[in-house]
């Protein structure tokens, strides 16, 4: 921790002004104690001011030491009292001999000093108390703001980690089944196998390369999703068809990377996996009034599926919307006449 006074010029000026004030008070106090001013009064005041403010500045270091180490309260109080006694003793004695050295012929100074001695002890203790209090206040305040800063940092870290985790859930089935298709195509259609490897690589590169949570354009998101769907079309052949209705003006709007991926994975899993009919995945994108609307829908087989969906994909998307946009974005799902659709409303930022 930096010195609270020395590290800041404004505070240093204030510090000296406060001391000037204290010195004036001290002067008045000693005037009452002695009954009159002497010629030594002003030099005495100035010397004591300089000395105590110097001691006050240097007190920071022992105080920081007392306060930061994990110690018992009694030890801290003991240390503070000891250093208080030492600094007051030094202050009173040094002031006396310094003034005497500066003004050797001032004989009434000794009488002035004697008369004001108890008051010197009193003001010394008072000032010492003030300084300790000020330092204490300063350290606890800066500890608090440090703690707040640390907490804020931790919160962003947790949020980032969560976002990363939510994003990195590419379905391993997709990967292994696609690789199996590639394995097959190397025999039946090597050209197509190569195409598939390239598509798969591009898809994976996109998914893996976006390490940070920088938003990407809808255009690049859609391009990547097309890659994904083309790969799935190789696996499922005619069983999967896709349709797109996209307004061109929306393409530059920014959105979280890989946000839509789980929704298409769901369409494949609950649509294509479970049905012997052709499953059509439709994507409709429109924008206006500060919002981007994305609707993804697919038909599905009405017979109950073998296992119940866990809802992970949808939860994942809505959690990411929350983390990204707070309550400014929304997601809704509909099930009607054998068609499942999910619609997203996202604030549009270019």
């Amino acid at each position, binding site marked *: 921790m930096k010195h609270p006074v020395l590290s800041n010029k404004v505070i240093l000026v204030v510090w000296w002004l406060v001391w000037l004030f204290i010195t004036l008070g001290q002067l008045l106090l000693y005037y009452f104690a002695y009954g009159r001013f002497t010629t030594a009064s002003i030099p005495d005041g100035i010397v004591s001011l300089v000395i105590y403010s110097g001691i006050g500045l240097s007190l920071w270091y022992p105080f920081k030491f007392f306060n930061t180490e994990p110690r018992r309260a009694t030890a801290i109080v003991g240390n503070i009292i000891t250093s208080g006694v030492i600094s007051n003793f030094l202050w009173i004695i040094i002031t006396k001999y310094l003034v005497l050295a500066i003004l050797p012929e001032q004989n009434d100074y000794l009488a002035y000093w004697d008369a004001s001695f108890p008051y010197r002890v009193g003001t010394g203790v008072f000032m010492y108390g003030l300084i300790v209090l000020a330092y204490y206040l300063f350290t606890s305040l800066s500890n608090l703001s440090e703690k707040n800063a640390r907490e804020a940092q931790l919160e962003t870290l947790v949020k980032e980690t969560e976002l990363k985790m939510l994003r990195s859930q590419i379905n391993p089935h997709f990967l292994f089944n696609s690789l*199996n298709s590639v394995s*097959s195509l190397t025999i039946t259609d090597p050209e197509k196998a190569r195409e598939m490897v390239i598509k798969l690589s591009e898809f994976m590169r996109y998914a893996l390369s976006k390490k940070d949570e920088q938003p990407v354009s809808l255009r690049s998101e859609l391009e990547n999703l097309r890659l994904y769907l083309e790969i799935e079309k190789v*696996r499922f052949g005619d069983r999967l068809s896709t349709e797109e209705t996209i307004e061109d003006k929306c393409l530059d709007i920014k959105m979280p990377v890989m946000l839509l991926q789980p929704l298409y994975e769901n369409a494949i899993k609950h649509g294509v996996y479970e049905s012997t009919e052709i499953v059509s995945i439709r994507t409709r994108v429109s924008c206006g009034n500060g919002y981007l609307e994305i609707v993804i829908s697919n038909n599905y087989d009405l017979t109950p599926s*073998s*296992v119940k969906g866990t809802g992970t994909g949808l939860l994942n998307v809505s959690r990411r919307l929350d983390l990204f946009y707070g309550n400014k974005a929304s997601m809704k799902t509909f099930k009607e006449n054998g068609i499942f659709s999910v619609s997203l409303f996202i604030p549009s930022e270019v």
Partner: protein
Amino acid sequence: MEKIRIIIIEDEAPARDLIKHYLKDLDSIEIIAECGDGFSALKSISALKPDLVFLDIQMPRLTGIELLEVLTEKPEVIFTTAYDQFALKAFELNAVDYLLKPFAKRRFLNAVEKAIEKIRSGAGNKVPANELLAKKPEPSSPVNRIVVRKGNAINLIPVEQIRYVEAQDDYIMIYHAAGKAMKQQTMKFYEDNLPKSDFVRIHRSYIVRVEEINKIEPYGKDNHVAVLKSGDKLPISRSGYKQLKEELNF
């Protein structure tokens, strides 16, 4: 020597092509059918009685596992799937082999050899289907339907329509919204797979949907019976009564 008769059950065309290609050079086998979904697989197996099937797990209509559940005469099985290893470890003992996609040709031929040996030795698959399935680990997602077979008809009963199940020797009678159905299975399967929030095992032989229970009446000295909405009365065992008490907070 008679050829080993094989059916490939797999919903992805490229995956089927690969298996066919791997089998091409083997003289001792004959592919008699290819199926792209669970229903047609069931039909083909029942009609053609193959010696060996290559079976994918994730398929439309019926999963590979559900297909095994309803087969009375079970051929040798080689699983081919991208499904996770944990679920498959359990099959190791009973299925001839399991192949994780994508698999190497040598690994594949190894599995086929093992299967041929087993079939040629005349052993056939002596392990009844339900025993194989008893080893099946709990699925990662809750079961959503029960597949039952009545003659040649397959019935998919949604779990939400099940009112209660009753143990009858080696069989389970499932009472559901549209009637009842019998299936060769264990009580344990239902205890493990029916959602715990909805069902309570009230007796060694009964698991009942809680909201089907209309009232609980004393019966005899310190026994109870559950009276269902349909009027059916089911016995409640002492431990079942305790569980019901916990579930219903009375």
